[in-house]
């Protein structure tokens, strides 16, 4: 695949002639300063006169020198089907990255980046903690050129199709849809949580004080007026509505910032997602790098008649999801989601899958584990509160109903190309992966499973996030599970891994 002429020995002589943007040192510096800037400001403005607080400025000076140093020593260039990056002056490093190994290209622009017309570029390969290359920052044109180069060369190496295909928009979100993304998501909670964490970091007493003051005033006001039961109920309800409304507003605002102008497009075999109102993100990954798919439909989704479609790609994951290609459709109608899957997985036959439901006895299997818990809780409550505690037993019929609903919804489908699982009743999801992308098989039986004659089959794919539901078929009759396990392991052994 790689020609011997383009080995590092020869690339060394090839001029790595491209440089970072002249202002790149500023962005490197800002990145470094991010963690110091707030304490620094606090010190400057709230410090107590003696000038010792200015010592950190020396550190800033050192950082300036370091960032300039990085600018002057960092070069990159293209040699054949490799990208060559040289950095360092005293301790030199030369890194060679074959285009075909680059899984993901991420371009990120904050507001400041956009002012200067530059972008931060990250090239990621599968696995590992850190990206293969992080270029902070390139001129936007250079960044886009690099991205298209990766796209073209990577494609050329893989399937020798040189002609650059046109971009095709697969999905774009108008403003109304972006607002819907905000409505269904719980991002508002994240904002509030982060704000609370940040505040309490600077002053541990700030949050309790604030709470104490607000509630003190409220209850003081209420206490001094002596309202009736109805008024209390109404005001409590109003408060809840207010809080929920504020959280939704936050998440709508956040969705606007993150998803404004969302566009999923396709260049040949590469998918590109662009989004963002103030800062812009542009992520692109090859279609075949997608490891597994998640289609999700929560309660609010159903009210709005929408679903969301996420994918796992096997790239270096450092917890910042915005970098990797994750969301193919933050929100779309069920038909649009199906069309998207059908378009991206043409051979899998997503809409023609034969779904196999669980047997009706699976409902019992789901219901059983909740029985001991409910009994324990009810016993504890009745010990504490008397006969009223036994009301907790009313949970049992509800649990049975829930188990029955969930059992009716759950199922799996298997085709020559694809394995898919659906689960959930209140909040539903479909999870599926191509057979070629499966890595390992795992079959488990708990003591309850052995009594009920069921088993759970786990299918492992790479790049699955901690928050994505696992690809597993639960509560299968044992013989069916073992049969599936055997036939899948035979299939996997015959098919080479493509990822």
């Amino acid at each position, binding site marked *: *695949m790689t020609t011997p002429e383009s080995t590092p020995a020869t690339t060394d002589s090839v001029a790595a002639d491209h440089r970072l943007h002249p202002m790149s040192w500023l962005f490197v510096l800002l990145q470094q300063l991010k963690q110091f800037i707030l304490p620094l400001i606090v010190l400057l403005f709230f410090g107590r006169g003696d000038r010792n607080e200015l010592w950190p400025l020396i550190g800033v000076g050192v950082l300036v020198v370091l960032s300039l140093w990085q600018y002057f020593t960092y070069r990159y260039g293209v040699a054949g089907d490799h990208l060559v990056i040289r950095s360092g002056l005293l301790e030199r490093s030369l890194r060679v990255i074959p285009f075909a190994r680059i899984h993901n290209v991420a371009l990120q622009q904050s507001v400041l980046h956009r002012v200067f017309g530059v972008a931060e570029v990250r090239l990621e390969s*599968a*696995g590992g903690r850190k990206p293969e290359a992080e270029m902070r920052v390139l001129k936007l044109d250079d960044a886009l050129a690099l991205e298209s180069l990766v796209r073209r060369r990577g494609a050329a190496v893989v399937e020798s199709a040189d002609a650059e295909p046109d971009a095709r928009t697969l999905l774009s979100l108008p403003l109304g849809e972006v607002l819907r993304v905000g409505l269904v998501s719980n991002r508002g909670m994240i904002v509030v949580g982060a704000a609370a964490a940040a505040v309490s970091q600077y002053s541990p007493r700030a949050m309790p004080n604030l709470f104490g003051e607000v509630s003190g005033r409220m209850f003081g006001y209420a206490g001094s007026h002596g309202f009736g039961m109805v008024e209390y109920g109404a005001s409590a309800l109003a408060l809840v509505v207010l809080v929920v409304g504020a959280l939704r507003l936050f998440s709508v605002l956040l969705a606007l910032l993150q998803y404004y102008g969302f566009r999923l497009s396709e260049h040949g075999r590469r998918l590109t997602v662009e989004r963002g109102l103030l800062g812009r993100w542009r992520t692109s990954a090859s279609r075949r790098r997608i490891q597994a798919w998640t289609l999700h439909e929560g309660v609010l989704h159903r009210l709005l008649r929408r679903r969301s479609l996420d994918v796992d790609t*096997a790239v270096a994951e450092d917890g910042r999801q915005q970098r990797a290609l994750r969301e193919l459709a933050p929100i779309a109608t069920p038909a649009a989601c199906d069309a998207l899957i059908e378009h991206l997985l043409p051979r899998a036959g997503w809409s023609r899958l034969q779904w196999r439901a669980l047997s009706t006895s699976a409902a019992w299997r789901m219901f059983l584990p909740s029985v001991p818990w409910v009994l324990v809780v009810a016993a504890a409550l009745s010990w504490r509160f008397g006969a009223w505690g036994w009301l907790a037993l009313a949970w049992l019929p509800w649990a049975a109903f829930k188990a029955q609903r969930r059992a009716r919804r759950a199922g799996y489908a298997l085709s020559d190309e694809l394995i898919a699982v659906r689960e959930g009743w209140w909040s539903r999801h479909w999870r599926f992966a191509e057979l070629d992308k*499966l*890595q*390992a*098989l*795992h*079959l*488990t*039986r*708990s*003591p309850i499973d*052995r009594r009920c004659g069921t*088993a759970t089959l*786990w299918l*492992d*794919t*790479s*790049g*699955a996030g901690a928050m994505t539901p*696992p690809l597993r078929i639960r509560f299968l009759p044992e*013989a069916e599970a*073992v049969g599936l*396990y*055997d036939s899948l*392991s*035979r299939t*996997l*052994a*015959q*098919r*080479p*891994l*493509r*990822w």
Partner: protein
Amino acid sequence: MTEPLNAHADTVAWQPLPTRARLLFVLAPTLPLFFVSLFPAFTLSRLLDVWAILPALPLLAAALGAWIGTKQYRHTWWRLDDDGLAIRRGRLWQRETRVPATRVQHLDIKRGPLQRSRGLATLVVHTAGTRHSAVTVPNLDAGDAERLRDRLGRQIDHDDDA
């Protein structure tokens, strides 16, 4: 004893671990349980003023650990067939993991001092997966481990870098 999870026993038999591995299996849960139980045993014996708790509780914990370890030793099996490597563990919670040979990324053999003295080795099979990215076969016979590594490693050479 227990009926096997996978009833269709194929031509290749499930391999047990060598008897030499027993001690290591027993030690693995016994020692931590023993030392962890020392602190509550000490506190309880002071609180209740019953000195007998001090030796009794750790010994009980150690016995429990030894029992768990013996069970784990007895219910660990491995098998290498044409498809790849399979490991079966546990009795109450039965788990069977299969790594098809085509999915093996790289292999590790680890040998601690105790394992070296008894001719044992732990084989770690790495895949590109997430939850089962490292499948471990503990305390194999060292020769078996090396044979497994060679067999599974050969497969990696076969498929070229696509």
